[in-house]
């Protein structure tokens, strides 16, 4: 039976996932801490060569998802598969690398020694010189970890994640404490990783970072996937534009116009968030000839993120109203 059924099943599965098999997968995973449900039937798939950004407010379940994929936690329900195995097994972990938020790293070891130690955990590590180059640590090899700047420390942690030449890389808030220049440099390294076919799962609270790097964004709130898609799709979901203008008109009246989502005071001007700007503008011009300082921008990822996460929080909306 099964030998007849399986050849027929395969082409369908392949057609559904033209990007090959997922390299990592959470399938309907539920994980609780005591009475708090951190993840609630959450599913996530990662494919080779893509950068997926996991976005969500604090306590949404981002870290729990990463810890499950790293094998640091066990799910209460559902399945975790990474590289065709269970991440709680050492052998599975030889093909992944992680950059986690570490508040303190042993400070009395030199950069080169930290790399040497992490290389010893893998049977086929990258050469140390290669790791130094990829994490841009040239010239810092003999520096004690405690003597590095915040950005340099993050780069060492990035380097440690690459020691085993992983196919799957987890980056938890990778650019915290970095200046703009080194942040952009790290973004280039992350893009290079995915260009070489590695899958990257990124959690970040810098929306710009997700926008710049991610091929796919998953927005998570209260342990559930509330939106996913490319950055453009996520932005499109809330659609709309932002109108900023200085006007004598009453904000309450503007909010009654068709298509207006929100109206807010921004210093001397009004900020009007709308699905379609043209009809709103016609009304505004007709009612106020003195309207000036007009700016129209498309809603950024930040607006999209706020509107997605807020629309799923009935409590906070009630408070606002």
């Amino acid at each position, binding site marked *: 039976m099964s030998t007849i059924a399986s050849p027929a099943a395969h082409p369908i599965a392949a057609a559904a996932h033209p990007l090959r098999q997922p390299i990592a997968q959470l399938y309907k995973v539920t994980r609780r801490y*005591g009475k708090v449900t951190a993840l609630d039937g959450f599913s996530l798939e990662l494919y080779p060569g893509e950068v997926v950004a996991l976005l969500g407010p604090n306590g949404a379940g981002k870290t729990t998802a990463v810890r499950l994929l790293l094998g640091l936690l066990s799910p209460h329900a559902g399945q975790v598969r990474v590289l065709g195995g269970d991440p709680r097994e050492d052998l599975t972990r030889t093909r992944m690398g992680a950059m986690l938020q570490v508040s303190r790293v042993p400070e009395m070891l030199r950069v080169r020694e930290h790399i040497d130690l992490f290389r010893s955990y893998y049977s086929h590590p990258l050469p140390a010189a290669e790791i130094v180059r990829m994490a841009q640590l040239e010239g810092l090899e003999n520096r004690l970890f405690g003597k590095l700047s915040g950005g340099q420390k993050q780069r060492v942690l990035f380097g*440690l994640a690459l020691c085993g030449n992983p196919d799957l890389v987890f980056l938890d808030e990778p650019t915290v404490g970095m200046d703009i220049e080194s942040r952009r440099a790290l973004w280039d390294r992350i893009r290079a990783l995915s260009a070489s076919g590695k899958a990257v799962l990124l959690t970040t609270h810098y929306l710009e970072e997700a926008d710049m790097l991610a091929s796919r964004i998953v927005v998570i709130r209260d342990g559930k996937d509330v939106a996913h898609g490319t950055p453009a799709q996520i932005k499109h979901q809330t659609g709309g534009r932002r109108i900023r203008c200085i006007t004598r008109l009453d904000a309450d009246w503007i909010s009654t116009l068709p298509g207006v989502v929100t109206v807010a005071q921004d210093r001397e001007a009004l900020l009007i968030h709308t699905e379609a700007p043209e009809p709103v503008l016609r009304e505004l011009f007709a009612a106020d000839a003195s309207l000036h300082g007009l700016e129209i921008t498309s809603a950024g990822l930040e607006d999209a993120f706020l509107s997605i996460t807020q629309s799923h929080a009935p409590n906070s909306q009630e408070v606002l109203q």
Partner: protein
Amino acid sequence: MNAATATIARPPAPLGFGYYLRALLQETRYEFIGRMRLRAFSLSVIGFPVMFYALFGLMNGHTPYATYLVATYSCFGMIGACLFGIGVGVSHERMQGWLDLKMASPMPRWSYLVAKLVSCAAFALIIVTLLLALGLAFAGVHITVMQTLGLYGVTLAGAIPFSALGILIALLVPPNAAPAIINLIYLPMSFASGLWMPLKYMPHWLQNFAPVLPAYHYGQLALGIFGYAQPGPAATHWEALATFTCLMLGAAWWIFSRSETRA
């Protein structure tokens, strides 16, 4: 991106003995180097027993007490290295996320603790060697080669029970409080176990209480090498230390698995 970083098809080869040996050696090496460079640790853990011996051992030079103190300060040094090295060390690395990062790598889990234990034992070797050098050179201590080897052996054996206690402390105590709590255990226990002065000079109730303490049995084993132990068979002391180790590891295991399901 160049060829070295491109995804290479690798068979999931089972990890061999060589891999585990190398991982353990590297882990131990860097644990020891890191501890040694941490002056607050290395100076106090080596410095205190050696300084105490320089004061009290040399003061009582050319008496049996000089030899007595070589044995007991060796034990005192080993206990300190384990409690501070493992108790404080693991507590910090666990709370600060460093242990998580290591656990997310394929690092063999056991090598983390074994490396810490071996590193503590290395500190104890340094302490015993310095104490013997001081004793032989300045305090008129005369001991045989067999006694020297015996002292090294017994001292190193103490790494196991007191590392177990260190692990339990690391799981129970937050890193900021760990040094203070450890001093509250370490110093009174050492005193009450006769590691600073012979038990016969102490009040009776303390002499009766001492056998409850693991450091007492440890000290008795070391003193037994030189014939200064309380009367009784050495086997009971080994048994007491083995029981203590099992209790500590059992409690640590219970707490660890409870925190795993909750965390």
